[in-house]
Structure formats: C-alpha cells, structure tokens
C-alpha cells in the first residue's frame, strides 16, 4: 500500500490518460460501425466481406499494429493518434459485425409492418431498426470497451502512456505492488465502465427486459 499511497497523483493521471486512449476509439468505432453495419446487412456479399475483414483484423497482434501504424499513417511515432486509430480499428471490426447481426435480428415482421405503415427507409432505420438493435449492439459495445481498456496497456511497452506504464515501470524497477495496483485499477475501471454501460442500456431500452422475459416464458 505504501507505494500506492505515495503515488496517488501518478495513478490518477495515468488513469485519466488511459480512459482517453481507451474510450475515444470506442466512440469512433461505434459511429463508423453503424453505417457500415447497415451496409453489410444489406447484401450477403457485404456480410461476407465484413465478416472476413473484421476477422482478419483481429488476428493482427495489438503490439504489432501499434508500431506498424506510423508506417502506414505517416504519423509521428509517439503520436497518441496511433493508439487511438489502432483501437478504433479493433472496435470497428468488432462492432460492424455486431451491428450487422443486430440489424438482421430485428424481426422482419416488424420492419415489414413499419414499411406498410408508410415509413420511408431512412426514418424507418432511425425510428425502428436502430432502436431495436440497441440491446445487441450495446452488448458488443461493452465487450469492445472492456477489450479496449485492456488493450491500451500494451501500448506502454512501446512508450505510450496509460496504466500499462505501471506494469512496465513496476517490472523494470521490481515494484510488484505497482504491477498489482495497475491490474486492479484496470480491472476496476473496466468493470465500472461496463456497469455504467449496462445501466445506460437498461435506461434506454425499457422494453428489452420485458420482451426478453416474455420470450423465455413462451
């Protein structure tokens, strides 16, 4: 505990930095995933492409993508843009699929009846299909967020900030307490944000639990 108590400001600033690195990509990824997921859901070709490309992106080790990106983007080596772009790509890859799946799981009968009532496609997408896919998409966002929080730590091995520094520094200097503290903070951070997302989801989809419960009893 002594190390932790003596270094609270450091932990605080690393946490803040960590959050920025971890969360901005989730937002970017989600914003891009919605139109792409919609597109992917429209044709079977689109789906195939999406599934394969996102699967492929996942196989690239995060460590590699962090250091290879400057070469691809022409950014500076320690530019935080690299980590943000890298994690955005991962998030996007995960969420495009989720969005496509979620949209395809919207009961066709509901979409159909919306069309029959005179909804035009864009309004129908925004008022019916998108809200109905929120529960599934949100589940994906939760996974993406937790992963993102965990992945940022890898950046520390290449000199990016964030809580991963506590691992590398603690390791370098043999401060076990710092490593443990880092793990705990990352874990707590992930679980807290996951909990917040869960609560958010419940708040914006009041119908979902009711519908789910009804589905089980039938």
């Amino acid at each position, binding site marked *: 505990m002594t190390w932790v108590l003596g270094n609270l400001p450091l932990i605080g600033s690393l946490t803040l930095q960590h959050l920025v690195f971890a969360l901005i990509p989730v937002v970017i990824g989600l914003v891009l995933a919605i139109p792409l997921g919609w597109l992917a859901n429209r044709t079977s070709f689109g789906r195939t492409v999406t599934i394969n490309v996102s699967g*492929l992106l996942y196989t690239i080790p*995060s460590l*590699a993508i962090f250091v290879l990106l400057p070469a691809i983007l022409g950014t500076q080596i320690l530019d935080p843009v690299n980590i943000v772009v890298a994690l955005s790509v991962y998030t996007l890859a995960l969420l495009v699929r989720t969005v496509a799946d979620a949209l395809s799981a919207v009961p066709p009968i509901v979409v159909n009846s919306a069309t029959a009532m005179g909804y035009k496609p864009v309004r129908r997408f925004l008022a019916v299909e998108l809200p109905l896919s929120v529960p599934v998409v949100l589940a994906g966002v939760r996974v993406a967020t937790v992963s993102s929080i965990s992945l940022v730590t*890898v950046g520390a091995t290449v000199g990016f900030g964030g809580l*991963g520094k506590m*691992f590398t520094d*603690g390791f370098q200097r043999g401060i076990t307490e710092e490593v443990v503290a880092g793990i705990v903070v990352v874990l707590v951070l992930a679980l807290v944000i996951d909990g917040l997302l869960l609560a958010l989801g419940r708040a914006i989809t009041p119908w979902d639990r009711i519908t789910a419960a009804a589905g089980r009893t039938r």
Partner: protein
Amino acid sequence: MNYLSYLFDATHWSGSQGIPQRLVEHLGYTALTMIIALVIGVPLGAWIGHTGRGGFLAVGLANGLRALPTLGLLILLVTLIGLGITGPLIALVILAVPPILAGTYAGVRNVDTAIVDAARGMGMRGREILFQVELPNALPLIIGGVRSSVLQVISTATIAAYVALGGLGRFIIDGLAIRDFPQMVAGSVLVALLAIVADLLLAGLQQLLVSPGLQVAPAAGRRRLRAVPDSRPAAQAA
C-alpha cells in the same frame, strides 16, 4: 515488397532464432494453453449450463476475466514465479478460458427447453441428457467459443516474448527494439496467417463434428439474437 524482405530472406528460415523454430514455439504455447483451457472451460460451462446453478457466476467470471489486462498479469506472474513458461501459460489460460466457458454455458443453456423436456419425458437421466442432447446441440456455440479463444491466444502469445520467451512475438519485440520494420511485419504476418489457418481448420472441424441437423436452416423464423455475453471474437485481451 520491402516490408516483406525479412520473410523472404533464407537466412531467417533456420537456426534457433529462425522462423520455423519460432513457429513451433508459438504453436506449442497455443496448444498447451488450449488443452488446459478446454479441460477447465468445457466441463465447468457444461455443468453450470446443465444444472442452471451459478449462471451468474459463469457470466460474471467470463466478463471479469476478460477485463484482466493480460500484460499486467503476465508481468505479475513472471515477477512472482520467475522466468519460464509457467507465468505466460497461466496468463494465456486465463485469457482463453472465458470464451470457452461462455460458449459452453450459453450453448447448453440455449438448448430449447422443449427438447430437454422431451428428453426427460422419455426417461433420460441427467448424464444422458447432458451427453446425448445438450452437448451435441451446444456444439456450434462451444466450437464458436473455442475458435474465438484460439484466435486470442495466437494473437496474444506474442507478448510472451516480452518476458523473454520465444514464439513469433520475438520478431515483433526484437524488431521493435531495433526498429526493424520488415522483422516486425514478418512477425505480424506470420501470426495472422497462423490464426487464419487455425480458424479455418476449426471451421472445418465444426463442419465435421456438428450434426447436419443443426446446420440446415430451420424451416421457420430466425432465432431471436439475445444480448448474451457473446463468445465470438471477443477482441484481443493482450
């Protein structure tokens, strides 16, 4: 072409630091991890799914473990246990178990209650229901979990190199230290290829193992997709 130069240099294809050696090491870590993870994840998931007890635990555990930063864990374990394969192996197993556990649990849990009811009504006992009905029907989700687990382990085994182990991660860590891009590209490409090949093999295995009856599209309506903690590419945890 330039970026791939390392891969196509014959001198990198032999010796104790050559590509074949690293590939074998990487495969070894992956295989060892998966065997342990399967032995833990499948029975546990099946038991929880079958009895319905501890479902909260399964989901919570899967989520919680997913939030554990593998790098931190790896470092902590190496600090505590010392150098060697044990630390990284534990870290990788912890990474590999959640998708398998969640997949098995969800697979068993999601078997249509009417089918389980029918099985019971025909006089099947608990074990018979589990082995003859629940597990065969859960197989697609179980293998789904295994596939996502394998992907993550192959990808994450690279950071074993950070604590002085071998594997394809060596090319990335060593390349990084001397800013040798072709070497890092070589490592990344090999990892990606390995992952793709492994995934294809598992997809083939899935075709073989899963009953054709579960692969034909059901006559009526798509099943509603629930927001269960999914077991598909649950992102790398590295």
